[in-house]
């Protein structure tokens, strides 16, 4: 435990240095895209600066070295996770609005389609029938708010003994189907 704390205290500032190097390489790599040689040299330099550090640290403790390398990996993942998370926020914000707009646009596109095929008057009736069927299929999903539209039948044994079938009750009176949990 003491060794791990020692290496944590040793790795923490070292990781900060790596952060500075990584941020420096990222900020430096983004503007000079026109000069790939310098970017490669900086990346090589950063790779070389990261690789010798764990090699020099493991004096004799392989276990502490494993934990130390794990810490660097975790912190590296955390470093990379922060911008990814921000990207996710941006990505998550745009598709929700885009899907909503696309969904509405799709509905807007699907509604004009039945009127468009009138260009072919020879088979207009069959096309209208197809358009009506497709239109009804498109209109069903938003109207079906429940998870299941039509209650699936079931035939289950009861604690009291006899088995019950939903279709035996259907049509005579409303049926309240309760999925319950005895252990809450």
């Amino acid at each position: 435990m003491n060794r791990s704390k020692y290496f944590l205290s040793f790795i923490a500032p070292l990781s900060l240095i790596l952060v500075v190097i990584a941020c420096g390489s990222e900020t430096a790599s983004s503007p000079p895209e026109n000069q790939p040689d310098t970017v490669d040299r900086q990346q090589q330099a950063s790779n070389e600066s990261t690789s010798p550090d764990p090699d020099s640290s493991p004096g004799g403790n392989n276990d502490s070295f494993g934990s130390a390398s794990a810490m660097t990996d975790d912190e590296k993942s955390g470093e990379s996770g922060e911008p990814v998370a921000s990207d996710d926020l941006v990505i998550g914000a745009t598709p929700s609005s885009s899907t909503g707009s696309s969904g509405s646009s799709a509905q807007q596109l699907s509604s004009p389609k039945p009127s468009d095929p009138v260009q072919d008057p020879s088979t207009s009736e069959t096309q209208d029938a197809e358009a009506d069927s497709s239109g009804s299929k498109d209109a069903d999903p938003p109207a079906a708010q429940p998870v299941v539209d039509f209650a699936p039948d079931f035939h289950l044994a009861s604690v009291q003994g006899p088995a019950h079938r939903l279709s035996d009750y259907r049509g005579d009176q409303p049926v309240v189907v309760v999925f319950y949990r005895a252990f809450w």
Partner: protein
Amino acid sequence: MQSNIDSVRSTGAEILAISTDDLNGPAGLAASQGFEFPILYTLGDPSTPKDYGVFNLHGDGLASASVFLIGTDGAVAWESIGERYTHQVPASEIVKQINNLGGA
């Protein structure tokens, strides 16, 4: 609990309770006592809760506590699917939905 059941049954609706728990234990016997409506169990076959889309929502291999009101036409008129383990629907809400079903 029994008064709630009576209030629901007074509307003429039938109650079918479905449990995905292991009812072979004492909890099953306790649950079966005093309840006039059938208590059905799935015997480890999740097809019925899967059909209703309530199976394994909590990742525990059980059905979520949920209520489905099925009209006389066989369609699901109203539903309440529990997102938490302690999900319970007040009987007054079920009665209200049944009355709405009858009025419509």
